[in-house]
């Protein structure tokens, strides 16, 4: 795995563009990790996955705890690891233990022996040794160490313990790793304490890791404190290694993360939108923004997304987004998706996941272009202002 920062924003901003190279695949950052269930997207089958923009769509997040019961480790090894088992030999698979839909960290059941997760097979305690056994037979391209992620409301003592455990488990995982941590991502926690965050980040930086996985966000901290916490962490991390943050998925959160120096984002935003029947429509660049201004009816969604379940779309023969090149927009109308959602056809989620993924990958692409053109600050400002004015206009209409 090789990572290099290719462009840093001037004027003191920390946003950066980079290139992540694994095997023969190279992906530009900032980038999005697509979320999966048992290694494959929730709804897009492998033949549809390959129709998404490349190489952006090569990055997948895989949760090892999805495989905690079946198949047995030996079978996974015999098959040849994750890439063979999933039929995705060219993809870049990044493994991390907890995620927001199926394997939620349950911090009150976590103890000194291992981290506890709520999985579809019940509550499981995962020790570093269990975790590394899974990692060694799955063979992902990159893996995050086992961590004790706690929500923002725990007391100081619990928070401190989580940092100590996370560091201890990081060392345990590296010790159990045949490659001594060469593909590891050290997890940084610390909750809502700036002090603990800095401490953890500094300590993790000392270990032999290839990058950093910043966890513990999206678990109850306020939007205001998140910004300072995130910056406190990235200030303590070396510049030349990639930083991934999990559970920050909203467009504004992504932009904030990029501004703090984050390179990769792992979130289930697309999945949650899709499950709710939402389609992303927010304008990606200036041209689209001008087109959208004033043309929007806010009765079924907002300027970022529309809820295709709403009756207002029953006879809407337009595309989700005019000019979008995804399969869904090239072939189907809002009315059809409205119908599918309302008759509970799985095709609705498949078509939505395709569009939402496509749209969001385009968003990341435009972020990268803005950084490379030295205009990220302007891009961020305009995006947020446009969003605010849309919300204000909607409020006035009501």
């Amino acid at each position, binding site marked *: 795995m090789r990572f290099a920062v290719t462009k840093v924003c001037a004027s003191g901003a920390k946003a950066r563009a980079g290139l992540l190279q694994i095997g023969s695949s190279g992906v530009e950052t900032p980038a999005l990790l697509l979320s999966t269930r048992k290694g494959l997207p929730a709804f897009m089958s492998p033949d549809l996955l390959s129709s998404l923009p490349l190489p952006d769509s090569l990055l997948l997040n895989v949760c090892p705890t999805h495989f905690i019961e*079946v*198949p047995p480790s030996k*079978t996974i090894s015999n*098959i040849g690891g994750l890439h063979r088992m999933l039929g995705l030999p060219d993809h870049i698979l990044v493994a991390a233990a907890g995620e927001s839909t199926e394997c939620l960290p349950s911090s009150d059941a976590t103890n000194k022996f291992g981290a506890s997760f709520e999985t579809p097979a019940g509550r499981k305690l995962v020790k570093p040794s269990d975790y590394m056994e899974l990692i060694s037979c799955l063979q992902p391209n990159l893996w995050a160490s086992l961590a004790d992620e706690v929500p923002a409301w725990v007391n100081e003592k619990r928070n401190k313990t989580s940092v100590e455990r996370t560091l201890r488990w990081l060392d345990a995982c590296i010790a159990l790793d045949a490659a001594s941590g060469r593909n590891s991502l050290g997890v940084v926690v610390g909750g809502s304490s700036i002090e603990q965050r800095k401490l953890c980040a500094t300590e993790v930086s000392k270990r032999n890791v290839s990058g950093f996985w910043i966890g513990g966000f999206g678990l109850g901290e306020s939007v205001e404190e998140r910004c300072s916490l995130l910056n406190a962490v990235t200030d303590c991390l070396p510049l030349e290694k990639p930083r991934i943050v999990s559970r920050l998925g909203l467009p504004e959160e992504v932009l904030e993360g990029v501004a703090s120096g984050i390179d990769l984002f792992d979130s289930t935003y697309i999945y949650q939108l899709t499950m709710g029947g939402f389609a992303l429509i927010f304008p990606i660049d200036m041209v689209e923004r001008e087109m959208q201004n004033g043309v929007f009816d806010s009765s079924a969604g907002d300027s970022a997304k529309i809820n295709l379940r709403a009756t207002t779309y029953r006879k809407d023969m337009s595309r989700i987004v005019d000019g979008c090149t995804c399969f869904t927009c090239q072939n189907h109308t809002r009315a059809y998706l409205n119908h599918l959602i309302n008759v509970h056809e799985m095709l609705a989620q498949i078509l939505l996941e395709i569009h939402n993924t496509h749209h969001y990958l385009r968003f990341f692409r435009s972020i990268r272009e803005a950084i490379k053109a030295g205009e990220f600050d302007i891009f961020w400002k305009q995006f947020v202002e446009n969003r605010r004015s849309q919300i204000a206009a909607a409020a006035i209409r009501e």
Partner: protein
Amino acid sequence: MLLTPEESINIQNNIGADIIMALDDVVKTTITGPRIEEAMYRTLRWIDRCIAAHKKPDVQNLFGIVQGGLDPVLRDICVRGLVERNLPGYAIGGLAGGEDKDSFWRVVAQCTAGLPEDKPRYVMGVGYPLDIVVCSALGADMYDCVYPTRTARFGSALVPEGVLKLKQNAMATDERPIDPSCPCMVCKNYTRAYLHCLVTKDPMGSQLLSYHNLSFMARLSRDLHMSILEGRFPEFVRGFLRVQFPKGDVPKWVHNAMEVAGIDISECCTPTNCQHDAMEAAGVDISEFCPPTRCP
């Protein structure tokens, strides 16, 4: 909602399908009594109303549907009535609803014998691969069924031997594909072990299994078609039955149907089956010696 023939045809005209179906009065084959006769005559009255209401006969093909339950007399009246109307194609309806197989094949055979040779015969709601092979042998051309995708959603994959239940614990360590001879995307990329952890739990499991099952059905159709074109259909049927029934326990109804279809399948059956028949012909009751499932 009470759907009239006119409404049904009107909606189908709007949808614009290439083949549209008449509105028929369908009754369960498991019932008896005058309701079946009523349904058959109603179906014949309604076909005229469908024909009258059809606004696009030049681009949409209206198929009539033969009803009449399991009664050969009623079926005959219905077949004649529909053939008189000179429709682009004919469906054999009212079957695939829980009737015993021996009655099922006889109705199909009667209908295919009475319907025109140069127009498609569509057996609605069929079905299992075995049923499709038998009906094809009897002269049917088209089928529709939810079976491949529904059984996929419940974790069953279609294989030449029958059905592979991927939910079974044994599948958790099975590193083979569903079917080593299948060229589909799923069999080329995935093991039974991985599919085992997906099926019935994740939508992706339903999708991958549906994909394979539909590929299986498409291949079955193509194999049937090619074997007929190449003049080796009986051979294909024998091969199919041998793989599905390796112990030679081909069900009696298949025997009977194949006899009428003119296909010799005696080499696919074990002698024990014939002993049953011999005893039956001689009037000797040997049912107390047989486990219930074995007796035809």
